């Protein structure tokens, strides 16, 4: 499966914009179709779940786009994020329930997000430095197996620290507060999660598209050696990629805790794999695609659950994954960052 060279597939900028528009239209159609299928209430749930998957999927797709590694440990970084947030709110800040005072709530949320995202980004960079960087020139099997090993280490560390049962996490935003929106009664927490996820994704898009480091990331994804010859610091760029991906996973972990009110040592693995499916669905290496893929997976899962096939939801997601890989290995939306399929 030799990919055509970047020069052959590179398109002028206008095409790329129209592709984004096309993806936007597809996403709208998708939402409308599901609105008709599962009703407004479930669409709100699907958008929330999809936002979580999308945030995790971004980390997978960025790392794969740059060093072509399926970072199996990424889902567990997300899980660790949920536990850091849990520990911070209950044990350090001493909060055990919802906060109704808006100012206190805002301050708490800012602290929790900032600390958790910092913690997970340190973890992500440390994993890259210790486990993946030494293997950068090794055969591809080696880092992949290492990633699985790291994933199991993180899971067992969480198991050791927090026990096998799921741990309650304070739902900082009162889940009882609702807003009537387009025929659905949507909890404020859902709106908060969706808006936050969109803001983070736009921030990422700006970072990758407009900054010097973002340009370094894009050029590294296209050709690491050539970009190194152009003066890109490869190690720094890869570390920054892991840092951003892990910070987003950390944010997803906080969100998951606030939304579901619990954290468990093994939920990172499956959550991560669904997010990876989202990344593949959107075309791995393509950040916009990964975000949309996250929402697609969210919709699939909620639709399956609302039609009484909740037990099959994982089987459905993984079947979609296999089908996409077989029939459209470049994903539904093709590739943007990485040109090497």
């Amino acid at each position, binding site marked *: 499966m*030799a990919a055509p060279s970047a020069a052959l597939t590179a398109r002028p900028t206008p095409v790329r914009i129209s592709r984004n528009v096309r993806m936007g239209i597809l996403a709208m159609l998708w939402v409308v179709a599901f609105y008709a299928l599962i009703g407004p209430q479930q669409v709100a749930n699907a958008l929330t779940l999809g936002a979580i998957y999308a945030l995790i999927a971004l980390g997978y797709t960025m790392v794969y786009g740059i060093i072509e590694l399926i970072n199996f440990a990424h889902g567990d970084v997300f899980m660790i994020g949920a536990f850091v947030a849990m520990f911070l709110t209950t044990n350090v800040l001493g909060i055990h329930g919802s906060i109704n005072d808006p100012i206190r709530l805002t301050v708490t949320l800012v602290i929790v997000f900032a600390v958790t995202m910092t913690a997970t980004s340190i973890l992500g960079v440390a994993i890259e430095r210790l486990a993946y*960087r030494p293997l950068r020139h090794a055969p591809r099997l*080696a880092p*992949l197996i290492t990633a699985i090993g790291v994933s199991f280490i993180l899971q*067992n560390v969480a198991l050791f620290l927090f026990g096998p049962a799921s741990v309650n996490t304070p739902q900082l935003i009162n889940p009882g507060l609702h807003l009537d929106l387009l025929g659905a009664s949507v909890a404020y927490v859902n709106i908060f999660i969706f808006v936050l996820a969109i803001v983070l994704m736009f921030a990422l898009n700006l970072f990758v598209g407009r900054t010097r480091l973002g340009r370094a990331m894009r050029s590294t994804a296209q050709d690491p050696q050539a970009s190194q010859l152009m003066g890109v610091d490869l190690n720094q760029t890869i570390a920054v990629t892991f840092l951003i991906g892990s910070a987003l996973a950390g944010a997803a972990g906080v969100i998951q805790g606030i939304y579901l009110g619990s954290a468990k040592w093994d939920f990172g693995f499956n959550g991560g794999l669904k997010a990876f499916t989202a990344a593949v669905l959107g075309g791995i290496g393509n950040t916009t695609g990964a975000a949309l893929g996250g929402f697609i997976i969210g919709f699939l899962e909620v639709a399956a659950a609302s039609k009484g096939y909740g037990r099959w939801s994982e089987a459905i997601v993984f079947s979609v994954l296999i089908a996409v890989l077989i029939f459209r290995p470049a994903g539904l939306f093709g590739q943007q960052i990485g040109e090497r399929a």
Partner: protein
Amino acid sequence: MNAGVGARNARQRRGGDVRDTIREFAEQHRSTSIIVAMAVIAAVLPVLAAVPPFSLFQPHNAWVDGFANAGTYVLLAVGLNIVVGLAGLLDLGYAAFFAFGAYAYAYGASPFSHNDLPFLPLLLVGAAVAATFGVILGAPTLRLRGDYLAIVTFGFGEIVPIVFLNAEQYTNGTNGIGGVYQPTIPLLDRLPDSFQFSFTNPWPFYVLMIFILTIVMIFAYRLQDSRLGRAWMAIREDELAAASSGVNTVTTKLLAFALGASTAGLAGVFNAAKLTVVSPDQFLFAVSFTVLAMIVLGGMGNIWGVAVGAFVISTIQQTLLKQLDIVFHQLGIPILKDVNFLSYQFLLYGVALVLMMLLRPEGLFPSGRRRRELHSAEDSAGEALVVDPAAPTGGLV
């Protein structure tokens, strides 16, 4: 570093004569040498378990029972070694094929299905069923690149237990199929009780496992040096080059998949007949991961290496960790007494995998070719146009 290499060469020279003689014999009489080796191992293990310090750990029958269980993992490891070690296809859903073998036997011989077919034909049926699913999964996916293939097999490995779990009508769901019949082998049932398969008598299982293993090892060993085995290794090292040299990559990879799967099918049948219960939770990703850890530690590509890796790890898992739990609990040492060592086995596997990949990616007992392959990148890294300052350049020998 140079001194270390020199010392090692000297060691190799000293042991060279005996080793050469054995190697020469093994190369000329491959099947015979495996039969002899397996017979020796089969005879030595029970004796070893009867002397201290091993005999202090647990009763002798428990050891033999443990050896038979370890044999299941050795079988799985030898099978996965064909797929991952020889052909270089990372299969993360290997437990699925194990499941197909087990369920095939459960359908063939249990009160649930009202069938009571003989064991030995079902052994072949289980292998055939697993191989069929290997081809069904492999045919559309083998054109994918290495890590995409890993993901597809992983997804497959996740789906299969979910299907067995949710198709309650056919599989009895979470509880699984119980009361699976223990093996019956013609002629054997005329012998006295000590030759009969039962929960209290692990010996027939042990001997049966040794027989299955010997045959599978002979197959695997001869395959490795056959035209097919060379084609697998060629694909592993450079698929494009192999294809240009006339290797039919699709058929060759499919055969690796099918043969690896059929070995897992054999293991599944044996395991079902031994445990007499088949349930979906026996075939989760943890099993695939454990077997992968075994072959990585043992040395991918080397049959004896992966067999030893699988045997040692599953013995540690079954006896040592369990005994540690009991010992620490009895001693009442704070903290340690509450730690359930068995439940942290995956932490050990994870650490072992990472350390192994970083320090000795070829495993403890590597095949020479595999070692050269895994270290060639380091050698060339030093000469490459772009030198990565953080990359290890020949630091690991």
